[in-house]
């Protein structure tokens, strides 16, 4: 199966079978993790130093590392993809004009 045939099959019913935008809970997890990365919930005042950085910066960085790991997992589990196939030469002949 060529890549173009694979694309046609995935679009056959007008929707990919599985895609990150179709699972609301994925976006809820992002909102929680990003919510933690913004220091709105800390009391104003001087920072304590953790691992050489202000404490609220460390919490922010850890939240964002979780975002990266979660994104990696979502892309692997929720983005339908088959094995790659070289592009059919015919593609050159039908570009949009």
């Amino acid at each position, binding site marked *: 199966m060529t890549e173009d045939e694979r694309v046609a099959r995935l679009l056959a019913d007008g929707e990919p079978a599985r895609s990150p935008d179709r699972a609301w809970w994925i976006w809820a997890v992002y909102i929680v993790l990003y919510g933690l990365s913004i220091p709105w919930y800390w009391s104003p005042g001087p920072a304590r130093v953790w691992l*050489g950085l202000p404490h609220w910066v460390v919490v922010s960085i850890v939240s*964002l590392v979780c*975002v990266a790991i979660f994104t990696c997992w979502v892309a*692997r589990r929720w983005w339908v993809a088959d094995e790659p196939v070289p592009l059919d030469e015919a*593609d050159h002949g039908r570009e949009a004009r």
Partner: protein
Amino acid sequence: MSESPLGLAALAAVLAYLGLLLAVAWRARAARGDDSLSSFYLAGRSLGPFVLFATLYATQYSGNSLLGYPGEAYRIGFAWVMSLGFMMGIIVAYLLVAPRLYLIARRHGYVTPGDWLDHRYGLPALTWTANTLTVVAIANYLLAQLMAMGHIVAGLSGGAVPYWVGVVGLTLVILVYETVGGMHAVAWTDGVQGSLLLLGLAGVIAWIAPTPDRLGEITAWVAAQAPEKTAVPPLAVSATWLSTLIIVPLSAAVYPQAIQRIYAAKSIHALRRGITVMAFMPIVTMLPVLLLGIVGIQQLSGLEGVAADQVVPLLLRQWAAESVVLHALAVVVIVAVIAAIMSTADSVLLTLSSMLAKDFLGKTVLAGETSERLTRAGKTLSWVVVAVLVGVALQPRITLWGLTEFKMELLVQVAPAFILGLHLRAIHGRAALWGLLAGAAVALALPFTPVSRPFGVHDGLVGLVVNLAVCAWASAFGRRSRHEKAMKVC
């Protein structure tokens, strides 16, 4: 140049790097097929996972990232850790766009982002408006890169090499390799540039913060001398932080140069792998950049406004004078910074050229011309656009981050039409157009009023809310066009 603080070693390294770029571009020229639009601007839709990752990475991290962002960290302190969040947010936003857009673009052979809008809405006024806004925004982005080239060359040479020589000289190199090799040359040179960028950042981390203790010393010094730069930020800063987290990822997700990389992927597999690795790059890249700005607070004082964009060049000059090892490290970082700037500039220029050729000339004076003719027109236009922008770049009056914010606030207005159109059939073309016009008008007008940036929120975000409200209202009460009713696959 021999009198510059970084001396002949830096000059030799930069010249060797430029020579390498031209050699890679020459090699890429052989790989390029015909002169069709998809061959020249999308590398024949043949980019595999590694090259795709390299070009996404080198394009996303730019002169803004390595000069403007340390400058902003210098100005506001540790709160600039928000940059990790919004750079990562761009990858999260790709998950909303890339899976569906890749499939549709592949099936219908899109070349520019305007092809999607044309196909989805069939409303020329919407495509023209969105394209015009996008071209203005990315021309602004390109301008920021050209200015960054001038800043870095002038700053590193201590003024021995004038700002204008940096702007004109490096721009000429980009124009040459881009004209010769198109997307093949840009993507391959991005591979070289991305690798140099990572090498430079590794050097920065090794020097600045080899241990938490050393990092702690810097943080303690900043806390004592400028406590507001380490303290928990006030709520107004958190509001700006949230606003930036929304506006940057949404606008960057519709960057035409990013969209074209989605189109250029060889397969879903390649695209998915490229984007997966990109999720970790903000940590690897923006953390050293943040720390550069923080170290700047300790080692440099009195830089205000535009001058803070010189933090990196000034630090490098200072380090180079300290020891041979640091001199060598500074040279590596110099080349990395120049690579970051050029890799973004070349991608933006290529995209700008494709949009002007296909979406503007191809629908007016060159309507009906062959794909090859449009490609040739695009190459010529690259030189014209650059000539105009170089003229503007020679009179810098705004900070690099200021230019970036302006671009984002404009570009984010295109996001509803582009992204919602991928997922919601209920969005109508006319509704998207009215929303876009209303949002752009608000974003452009608010800065001139007393209520600009309410509660620290970007004017562009206020415009986006208006944009969405108008779009939703008009979609609810308007009727879909015949074109939209006939569309089976979005």
